């Protein structure tokens, strides 16, 4: 009974995701595509919940409902389209030169093949991750060592990717004049201010709680940072945060706080172990929490500044 229910839930979820994905790619108008894509993101959170990965569901919820929806919904109008929605969607020639029906057949075949390969590979148990690269004698548990090592490098590089994306957006954005902002008739301000006043404390508290609770799981800082970034996006939609012409020094410090803390930690960790970015035997939890705090602040500030640099923030200023 329960098995059949689970199978039909998963099947319905998968079918809905495929329908939404098709319409977010092939729908006739920008708004339709964007809305279907946002619905797709919300359902992905359900998929993560079903697959037993609540960390991912939390990240998908905070990012999908927050910054992604503001980015994409704003982009439809802020970017004027020279040739869109008309000729391009109606012709049968695709952008790469192959006729669309041929391309559709090829992609369908690819999808069927992929499904078979994925099923075959996923149902055979994968070999356990190699622990050969880790000095098993530094930390007693090799699996913990793999995780901590992996997490250190992964997080450091990800922070760098975020910073590079922000730099790129800022450099490109300098060439643009701001899109002329006509004052919206009757802004959203009064009610939005009420909402902000009520939900800001709850959001801050939730972010700190997520950070605290996630210090044992991989990457509680990202979800907390995404939640804080959602708060920042709300403030900028309310007109309380404006796009900046120059990043002030204090903000720059916050931007590099995460990378700086990790670099410091990498150097300091050489004192107690031959490999960088390994946690000491004692006080690992407090150290991880400190790093996570720096990480959360940097992720939140970077995401908000990215949103402010993107087309979505160039509309609806007070």
């Amino acid at each position, binding site marked *: 009974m329960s098995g059949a*229910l689970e199978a039909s839930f998963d099947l319905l979820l998968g079918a809905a995701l495929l329908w939404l994905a098709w319409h977010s790619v092939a729908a006739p108008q920008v708004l339709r595509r*964007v*809305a279907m894509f946002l619905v797709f993101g919300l359902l992905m959170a359900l998929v993560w919940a079903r697959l037993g990965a609540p960390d991912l569901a939390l990240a998908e919820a905070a990012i999908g*409902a927050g910054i992604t929806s*503001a980015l994409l919904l*704003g982009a439809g109008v802020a970017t004027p389209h020279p040739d869109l929605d008309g000729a391009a969607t109606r012709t049968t020639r695709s952008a790469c030169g192959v006729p669309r029906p041929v391309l559709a057949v090829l992609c369908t075949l690819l999808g069927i093949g992929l499904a078979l390969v994925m099923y075959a590979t996923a149902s055979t148990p994968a070999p356990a991750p190699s622990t050969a690269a880790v000095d098993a004698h530094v930390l007693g548990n090799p699996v913990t060592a793999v995780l901590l090592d992996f997490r250190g490098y992964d997080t450091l590089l990800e922070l760098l990717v975020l910073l590079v994306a922000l730099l790129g957006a800022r450099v490109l954005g300098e060439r643009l004049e701001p899109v002329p902002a006509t004052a919206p008739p009757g802004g959203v301000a009064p009610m939005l201010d009420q909402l902000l006043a009520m939900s800001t404390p709850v959001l801050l508290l939730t972010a700190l709680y997520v950070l605290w609770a996630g210090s044992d799981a991989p990457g509680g800082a990202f979800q907390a940072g995404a939640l804080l970034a959602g708060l920042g996006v709300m403030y900028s939609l309310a007109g309380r945060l404006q796009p900046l012409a120059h990043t002030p020094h204090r903000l720059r410090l916050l931007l590099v706080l995460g990378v700086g803390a990790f670099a410091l930690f990498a150097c300091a960790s050489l004192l107690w172990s031959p490999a960088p970015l390994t946690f000491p035997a004692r006080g690992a939890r407090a150290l991880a929490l400190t790093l996570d705090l720096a990480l959360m602040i940097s992720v939140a500030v970077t995401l908000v500044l990215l949103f402010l640099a993107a087309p979505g923030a160039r509309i609806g200023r007070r």
Partner: protein
Amino acid sequence: MSGFLLAAALLLLLNAVVGVVSLYASPYPADRMLAILLIGSTTVAILLLLAYRHEPPVLLEVALSFVLLAAIGSIAFVQQRLRAPPHEP
């Protein structure tokens, strides 16, 4: 109890999918936003139902962060429409 909660979640998901398909076909732009609202509240309800199938209900925080940020989409949509050229459908 676990089976009942899953059955309720399945019913809600089916309900929301039907709603989104009908809203997709409608000609009004505001209906796109209604689809997001519908899926948003349904997702929260399903997450709550799924959360109580297992003993520590870890998915409650997920539902909480959903509702905390749920208004962002509507605000962005309305500001976008206010700036849209009036002839656009």
